[in-house]
């Protein structure tokens, strides 16, 4: 039996309709839905809760003369299980001029002697590192000063720097990155503090020599914890006592 002519046309139309429907379904939707799922989902979620901030009214580091922080310092000696413990005293020593820049010096005393000097300045809303000097070394000067953070300070902010590093009359190109890596609760012998962690990396020349450091500041307190390299050994320090604020 031969189907009537209309039936043939109908089938051709039907096959075209199937393709058209598939195309329509394809273009209109029916996409692979992504449902938030999995044990590591927290990594992909937006940060919740109130973000911690710091302002000039309640600064992370006050450079008022006389402010001090007593820190327990721990140095892990590479290649051995030995840890050297010292009690360091950070004191805002007062104004100093370095390379024509008016700034403030913080002295770090170890066993009663100056072990390290750090020179900071407030440049408007920006705290900058002007120079630093390690024991048995000379003052290392950054030009222009390296910005560490800018008020109002917020988690995730960062500042780039490119300039020069001068020591013993020799000048090298350098670059740096300083960022507010996160808000962390830090337990120290003095108290438990809500802090903002500032990570800074200064790389000299082609990046072969680097000065990494981490500073945990609590608003209205100042230094709470520090992480740094001491004679190529990883070292850290935590506040035991602070005052003069």
């Amino acid at each position, binding site marked *: 039996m031969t189907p009537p002519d209309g039936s043939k046309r109908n089938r051709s139309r039907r*096959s075209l309709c199937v393709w058209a429907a598939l195309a329509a379904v394809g273009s209109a939707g029916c*996409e692979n839905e992504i449902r938030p799922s999995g044990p590591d989902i927290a990594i992909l979620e937006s940060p919740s809760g109130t973000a911690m901030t710091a302002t000039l009214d309640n600064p992370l580091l006050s450079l008022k003369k006389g402010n001090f922080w007593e820190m327990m310092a721990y140095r892990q000696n590479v290649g051995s299980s030995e840890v050297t413990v010292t009690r360091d005293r950070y004191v805002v020593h007062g104004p100093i001029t370095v390379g024509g820049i008016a700034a403030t010096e913080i002295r770090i005393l170890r066993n009663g002697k100056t072990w390290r000097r750090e020179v900071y300045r407030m440049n408007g809303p920006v705290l900058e590192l002007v120079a630093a000097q390690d024991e048995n070394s000379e003052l290392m000067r950054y030009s222009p000063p390296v910005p560490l953070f800018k008020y109002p300070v917020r988690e995730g902010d960062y500042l780039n720097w490119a300039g020069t590093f001068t020591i013993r009359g020799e000048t090298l190109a350098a670059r740096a*990155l300083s960022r507010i890596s996160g808000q962390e609760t830090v337990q120290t012998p003095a108290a438990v503090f809500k802090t903002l962690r500032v990570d800074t990396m200064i790389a000299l020349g082609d990046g072969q020599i680097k000065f990494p450091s981490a500073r945990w500041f609590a608003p209205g307190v100042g230094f709470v914890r520090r992480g740094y390299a001491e004679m190529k050994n990883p070292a850290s320090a935590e506040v035991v006592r602070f005052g003069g604020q």
Partner: protein
Amino acid sequence: MALPVPRAETAIPVHRPTFVGLTVVFGVTAILLFVIGIRLQQRGRWLPELPTEIGSWIGARKDVPRIALEALGNPLSRGVEFSNVFEERVQAQVFATSDFESYLDPKVFMARYRYGLTAQREIPLFGKDGGVRGLVFRGVEGNDRVLMYYWVQYRDGRTSATESLTQKEDLLTRVRLGAEATLRGTENCVVRVWVSILPNDRNGVQSRRNMDEVCRAIHDSLKEQGRKGTGS
């Protein structure tokens, strides 16, 4: 008693496919596949450049490994490794979409490297232009974690986080991608960006920040090239 013989007019009609009918179906299919193929080729001509400097990140060209290209049907590609002074690294790759395999799902792709998916969600990273598919993987052996963003970006800046081939034989997705390419045909590319989550970044916050910053800049750069009509 003789059985009644049904009259021809009252028999149930049987519709057998005729040669003409089948020819029409095959013909339409062939034409459609041909058109889809042409449109995919047209769409896959766009391969924009990746930026080489993003804020504190410096990018260095790093070609996509051959084994990865083979898994994706050997599309045209570009790769850049971004690094910063903290020695953190972000890997970025962009692929032309001249074939369906370019859209291979990251989950399927990473399984080949023995990484299992442990989280995924759509992240609206580019505002009204769209978002990315965020995925977290863990190494089956080492338990190290990788954070990856996957998206398809069109010349006008729109993105899609959902266009991916969950398996080589994913027919529905092929139909959808084919139909989309045929009807709209806007040139696009696939972008895959990932980072190893460092052990000291326990909750992955810094990795997320790094990824968000790099991916936003890549999106903007690709959008700009799309507008200018640049990119080979």
